[in-house]
């Protein structure tokens, strides 16, 4: 009898003794995406912050050859949290499923996260940067 009671107590108490995993409030239709970043980006971001994602890649030209370009592929992405695990740093981003696919594609290239004001709601097309535009 005592064994049963003790087992019951342990069953109830065990979950509270284990380290709790983070839970995220993800609205229906959205996804949480963990993006690995450098330490300075992850450790200086805060939940509720907003970021833009830049991507650098070799664009294939119609005339042949390729040009390195940088484009802003996502704007005003909500940071849900920051994570550090096994010595690596990352941001937990809230993304629409389509945008998650674009970001995964971009992760194969070079990615830069830039910060913006959380209350800066402006988002619009930004001309792609190519070297020839500088001169």
């Amino acid at each position, binding site marked *: 009898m005592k064994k049963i*009671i003790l087992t019951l107590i342990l069953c109830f108490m065990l979950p509270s003794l284990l380290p709790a995993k983070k839970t995220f409030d993800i609205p229906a239709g959205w996804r949480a995406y963990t993006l690995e970043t450098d330490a300075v980006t992850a450790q200086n971001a*805060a939940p509720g912050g907003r970021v833009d994602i830049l991507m*650098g890649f070799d664009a294939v030209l119609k005339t042949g050859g390729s040009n*390195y370009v940088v484009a802003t592929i996502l704007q005003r992405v909500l940071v849900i949290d920051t994570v550090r695990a096994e010595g690596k740093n990352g941001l937990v981003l809230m993304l629409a499923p389509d945008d998650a696919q674009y970001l995964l594609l971009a992760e194969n290239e070079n990615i830069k996260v830039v910060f*913006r004001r959380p*209350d800066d709601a402006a988002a619009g097309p930004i001309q792609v940067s190519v070297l020839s535009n500088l001169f």
Partner: protein
Amino acid sequence: MKDKIVLFLISALFAAPGFCGAKAVVAAAVNIKAGERLSANMLKSRNVDEGDLQKGAAEYSEANINKFAGLYALVDIPQNSQITVSVLGGGRGSAAAGITSGWRGYFLETDAATAEIVKPNDNIDILVFTRVPKPMVLTLMQKVRVLDVKRQDGKNYLFLSVAPKDAQYLYFMEKKAEKIKILLRSPDDMKTGPVKVLPADGEL
């Protein structure tokens, strides 16, 4: 005696808030206006029945209070309201509050000596030496405001306020240029203008 202890433990267990269906969450101790920066004394613990818990409400803990203190309210938060992450904006540590609307905060890695002499609110010029499309030195940006200077994991960074398009060019050069040089300028020096590109292929 042992039975009494066991019974006491069981009753204590069931009397715990979790079993009563109530949960202590972080709530607003005062009326908080949109844009206001949160401090620990603006937050309090509030017991909420399981059924009244808002989605994303934060459990009351010292860690969560510390996490929220320093963030900014994105909307008006009435007194006693449950605090959820979605109504707060990054502030503490993120330096996001220092960024002007329409601009971006950019972490640019730099050398220790530069990080030593540059301070927040300084203005800098950014020079690059690139071999693409041909060897040259060019002044990429002028009068860039430094929001912060950080040292992280043995590396030095300047947190710069840049226009979205300039953020793209800066990243372009981080990837393609051989060297990026930071020049400190006088805080009173407002002058900017075209600086001739310096060819570095013997065509001086």
